[in-house]
C-alpha cells in the first residue's frame, strides 16, 4: 500500500500557531482589574509577533500542506491590513472595557478570530476558506454578545448568529455544488471549469452564486446587509469596529482570488452578480445612512456603501482592479477604524451614548479629536487631500477603463449623497455647542490620543503620497 507523507511544512503556519498560543495563554492569565494592562499587552504582543514575521515571508511564496496553504505576497498584504485592524481593535477594547471583567477571554477570542481570517486569505482551497470563516464567525458570535446584560447586545447576537449560520450553510452548499460540477474544491480551477461548462453549467452556476452570496454576507453588501446595522449597534463598540473592517478584508481576499481565477474566461454570472451587488450597496447604503441618528448605525450603512465602491474594483480586474481594491481596503482600515476610535474615545471618557447629536461641541472640548474626526469623515466621503479620495479615484479609474462608466457615474452621484451624512458629523462637532453638562471620567488617555492622531496622519499621508503603497500592491499582485 502506497503511503506518502504529505508535505506539511509547519513553518508556513507559524504566525497562526503563535496567535493561537498567545490566545491560549491569555485564557489562563489571571483576570483582574490590576492585571488589565498585562492582558492587553499580551494580546498586542501576539499581534506584533505575527506581524513581525511578515517581512520574513515576503517574496518567498512559502507553501505547505500540499499547497493548500500558500503564503504569497498578496496574502501577506492582506494579513498586514488585518493585523493592523486587530491591533487597533485591541487598543480600543482596552479603553472601552475599562470597567468590565473577563478581558482575557475577550482578547483570546479576538486572537482566534485573527487566526481564522489569516487562514482565509492564504488558501486556494474552498474548504479551508470555509474552515477559516467558521473560526472567525464562531469567535465573533461570542464577541458580539459579550455584553450579556444588554438587551440590544443579545438581539444583535441572535440576528448575527442566525444570519451568519445561514450564510455559512449557503456558502458550504455552494462549495458542494461546485464540487459536484467540477470534482475539485480549488479556486484555481474555477476558470477552466467555466470554460468547459456545458452540461454541468447550471450546477456550476448555482454553486458560484451560492459561494458569492456567502461572501456577500461577510462583506455586508446589499442584499445580504440586513444584519449589519443592528449588529454594529448592539455589539460593544470595540467589537463593532473590528466587525466593520476585518471580516470584510478577509472575505474580499477570497472574492479577489475567485475573480482573478475567472478573469480570463467569459464569466457573466460573476460579473453580473458583482455589478448588482455594487450598485445596490451604494444606493441602499448611502440613502439609508442619511436617515440615521445613531453614529454607529450611520457608520454601518456607510460601510455598506463603501463596499459598493470597492466592488467596482473587482469589475476592472483586467485593468488592475485588484490593485485598486487592495488599496481601498488598506485605506479603509485606517479611516474607518479612526472614526470608530473617536467614538470609543468619547464612550470611554465621557460615557456618551453615541447619537450623532452627542458629538455637539466636540470641537470646543477636544479640538484635536474633532480635527482627527474631520480627517476621517472627509476621507470616507472621498474628498482630497485624503487617502479616501485617492482610493475612490483609483477604483473609479479602473471602473471606467473596464467600460462601466454608468456604474462609476452612479457611484459619483452617491458620493455627493454621502456628503450629507459625513458632513453632518462635522457640522455637529463644529457648528453646535453641547446641550448639557458633560461629565468626564478620569483616566489616562495619552496613548489612545496618540494612536488616533497617527491614524489621522496616515489617512492624510496616504492621500498625499500614495505612490509607494501603490507600487507595493502592484508588486504583490504581479507576482501571483
Amino acid at each position, binding site marked *: 500500500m502506497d503511503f506518502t507523507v504529505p508535505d506539511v511544512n509547519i513553518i508556513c503556519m507559524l504566525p497562526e500557531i503563535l496567535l493561537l498560543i498567545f490566545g491560549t495563554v491569555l485564557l489562563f492569565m489571571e483576570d483582574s482589574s490590576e492585571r488589565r494592562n498585562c492582558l492587553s499587552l499580551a494580546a498586542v504582543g501576539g499581534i506584533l509577533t505575527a506581524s513581525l514575521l511578515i517581512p520574513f515571508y515576503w517574496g518567498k511564496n512559502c507553501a505547505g500542506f500540499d499547497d493548500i496553504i500558500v503564503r504569497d505576497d498578496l496574502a501577506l498584504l492582506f494579513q498586514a491590513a488585518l493585523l493592523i485592524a486587530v491591533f487597533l481593535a485591541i487598543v480600543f477594547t482596552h479603553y472601552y472595557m475599562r470597567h468590565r471583567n473577563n478581558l482575557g477571554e475577550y482578547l483570546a477570542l479576538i486572537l482566534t478570530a485573527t487566526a481564522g481570517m489569516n487562514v482565509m486569505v492564504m488558501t486556494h482551497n474552498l474548504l479551508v476558506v470555509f474552515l477559516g470563516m467558521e473560526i472567525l464567525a464562531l469567535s465573533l458570535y461570542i464577541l458580539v454578545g459579550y455584553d450579556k446584560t444588554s438587551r440590544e447586545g443579545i438581539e444583535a447576537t441572535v440576528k448575527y448568529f442566525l444570519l451568519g449560520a445561514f450564510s455559512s450553510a449557503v456558502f458550504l452548499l455552494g462549495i458542494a455544488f461546485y464540487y459536484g460540477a467540477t470534482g475539485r474544491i480549488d479556486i484555481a480551477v474555477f476558470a477552466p471549469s467555466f470554460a468547459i461548462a456545458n452540461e454541468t453549467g447550471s450546477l456550476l452556476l448555482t454553486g458560484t452564486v451560492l459561494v458569492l452570496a456567502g461572501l456577500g454576507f461577510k462583506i455586508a453588501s446589499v442584499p445580504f446587509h440586513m444584519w449589519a446595522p443592528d449588529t454594529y449597534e448592539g455589539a460593544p463598540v470595540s467589537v463593532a469596529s473590528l466587525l466593520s473592517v476585518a471580516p470584510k478584508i478577509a472575505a474580499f481576499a477570497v472574492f479577489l482570488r475567485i475573480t482573478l481565477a475567472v478573469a480570463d474566461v467569459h464569466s*457573466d454570472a460573476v*460579473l453580473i452578480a458583482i455589478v448588482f451587488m455594487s450598485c445596490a450597496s451604494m444606493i441602499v447604503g448611502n440613502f439609508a445612512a442619511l436617515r440615521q441618528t445613531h453614529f454607529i448605525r450611520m457608520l454601518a450603512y456607510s460601510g455598506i456603501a463603501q463596499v459598493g465602491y470597492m466592488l467596482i474594483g473587482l469589475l476592472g480586474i483586467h485593468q488592475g482592479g485588484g490593485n485598486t481594491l487592495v488599496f481601498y481596503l488598506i485605506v479603509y482600515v485606517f479611516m474607518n477604524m479612526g472614526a470608530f476610535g473617536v467614538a470609543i474615545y468619547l464612550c470611554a471618557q465621557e460615557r456618551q451614548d453615541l447619537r450623532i447629536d452627542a458629538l455637539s461641541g466636540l*470641537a*470646543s472640548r477636544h*479640538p484635536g479629536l474633532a480635527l482627527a474626526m*474631520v480627517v476621517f469623515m*472627509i476621507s470616507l466621503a472621498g*474628498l*482630497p*487631500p485624503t487617502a479616501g*479620495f*485617492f482610493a475612490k*479615484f*483609483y477604483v*473609479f*479609474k479602473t471602473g*471606467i*477603463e*473596464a*467600460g*462601466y*462608466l454608468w456604474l*462609476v*457615474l452612479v457611484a*459619483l*452621484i452617491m*458620493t*455627493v449623497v454621502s*456628503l*450629507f451624512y459625513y*458632513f453632518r458629523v*462635522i*457640522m455637529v462637532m*463644529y*457648528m453646535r455647542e453641547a446641550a448639557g453638562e458633560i461629565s468626564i471620567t478620569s483616566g489616562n488617555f495619552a496613548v489612545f490620543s496618540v494612536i488616533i492622531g497617527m491614524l489621522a496622519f496616515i489617512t492624510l499621508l496616504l492621500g498625499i503620497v*500614495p*505612490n509607494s503603497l*501603490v*507600487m507595493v500592491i*502592484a508588486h504583490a499582485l504581479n507576482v501571483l
Partner: protein
Amino acid sequence: MNISSLPLLSCIIVLPLIGSFIIMLCNERKQIQSVALVTSLVSFISTLVPILAFRPELTGFQFEEYQSWIHNLGISYHLGIDGLSLFLLPLTAFLTVTAVLVSWNRVAVKEKAYFISFLILETGMLGTFVAIDTFLFYVFWEAMLIPMFLVIGIWGGENRRYASIKFLIYTMAGSVFMLAAIIVMAFLNQKTGNGLSFDITRWMELAIPAHIQMWLFAAFFIAFAVKVPVFPFHTWLPDAHVEAPTAGSVILAGVLLKMGVYGMLRFCFPLFPEAVRFFTPYIMALGLAGVIYGAFLAFAQKDLKKLIAYSSISHMGLIIVGIFALNSSGIKGGIIQMVNHGLSTGALFILVGALYERKGTRDLDKMGGLAGRLPVLATFFMMVLLSSIGLPGLNGFVGEFLILLGACKFSLWVGVLAATTVILAAVYMLWMYQRVMFETDRSPEGRPLSDFSMREKIIMTPVVILILLIGVYPSFFLNRIDTCANTFLAGIYTQPAKYVQVVADNHSDRGDMRYGLHSTRR
C-alpha cells in the same frame, strides 16, 4: 545658491500651509493674528515675483516645475503659469491679506481654526491656479471646499449651517462629473498611444472626435458653471454670501468665483474646441440671462449683501459673454475683468461689512444719511462702486469695454443686450448708494457712529490704488494677457489634422461599452 533655481511656484503654494502649521502652535490671539498677517503678506510678495520675471511674448507655461508623483498612474506634480493665471495669483494673495486684516480682533470663537482655515484656503486657491496636471488641479479644487465650508458654517450668520452645506453640495455635485471626465480623458490619452498621463499639455495634443468632445465638455462645463455661477446654477451664491462672514464673502466673490472662468479657459477651450464652438450660442444665452436676471434681482434686494451677491451674478455673466465671444478683445476683457471684479466686489463686501458693524443691520430701509456721518467710508464706497459700474478711468471700464467690444463683434444684438449691464448696474448701484448714504436716516434710534478706523483705511487704500492703476494703465496688464488670449483663440479655430478614431465595439451581451481605439492621430 542661485535664486532662480528655487521652485518658485511650490514656495508660493507651501508658504500659507507653513503659516497654518505655525498658528497651530500659537495660543494667544495676538500671536495667531500676527502669524496669519505675516504669512499672508509674505506670500503676497512672493506672488509678485512672477509678474516681474514673466516674459509676455512666450506662449505656453512659464516657471514650470515637474516631478513625477504617482508613477504607476502617470500623475505628476506639474506646475506652471501663463498670462491667464499670472494676475490671479497676486489677486488671491492680496485678498487673503485683506481677509486677515478685516478679521483683525473680530473673530469671537475658535479664532485659531479661523485663520488656519483661511491660510489652507489660500493654499488651495493658489494651487488651483498653478496646477497643470489635472489630477493635481482636482485635488486643489476640492481641497478648497472644506475650509470654505467651515468658514461659512462656523463663523457665518444666522442661517449658516444651511448655507454651508448648500455651498458644499452644489459645488461637489458639479465637480464629480468633472472627475469622471478627467478619468475618461486620461483613458483616451492612454488608448491613443499618447502615454499614461494626466498632464493637460499632453492632452492638448489629442484631437478628440466631436461627439465625445460634447460629453466631456459638458461634464467640465457644469463643474465650472456652478462655481462661476452661470445663470441656472446660481442659487447657492446668495445664501453663501449672505451667511458668510465678511472675510469669507471677500474670498468667495473675489477668488472662488473666478475659478470657474479660469477652468473654462484652461480646460474647455484648449481641450474641446469643437464643443466650445458648438455650445457657444447656448452659453452666450445663459451668460446674457445671468447679466440681466442678476441685475434685476439685485434691483429688488433690500439686504445689501444680497444686492452685491446678485450684482456678482450679473457681472460674472458678463465675463462669460466676453470669453465665449471667441475673439481677442472678448477673451482679454474677460481675463482682466476677472481681476477687476475680484478687487471691486471684494472691496464692496468689506465696505458692507464695515457698515454692518456700525449699524447692526444690512437692511436698506434702515439706512440713510450716512455720508455726512461717515465721510471717509462714503468716499471709499463711492470709488469702489464706480469701479464696479465701470466708470472710465477706473478698472471696471477697461474690462467692460473690451468685453462689450468683443460681444458686438460676435453679434450686434448680443452686444446690445450685454451693454444693458452698464445701465442696469448704474441704476441699482447708484440707487443703493443714494438710499444708504444720502436721504435722511431711517434707522429707529440714532446710534453714534465712528468713521473708518486706521485699520480699515489701511485695508481700503491699496484696493483703491489698484483700481486706479488698472484703470489708467491697463496696457501693463493687457500686454501680459495678450499672448495667452491669442493662444486660446488659435486653439479654438484650428482644425485638427486628423481625429483620433474611437470606435465603440459593444460587447452587448455583457452590457458594457468598451472603447476600442484603432488608430492614432497623424
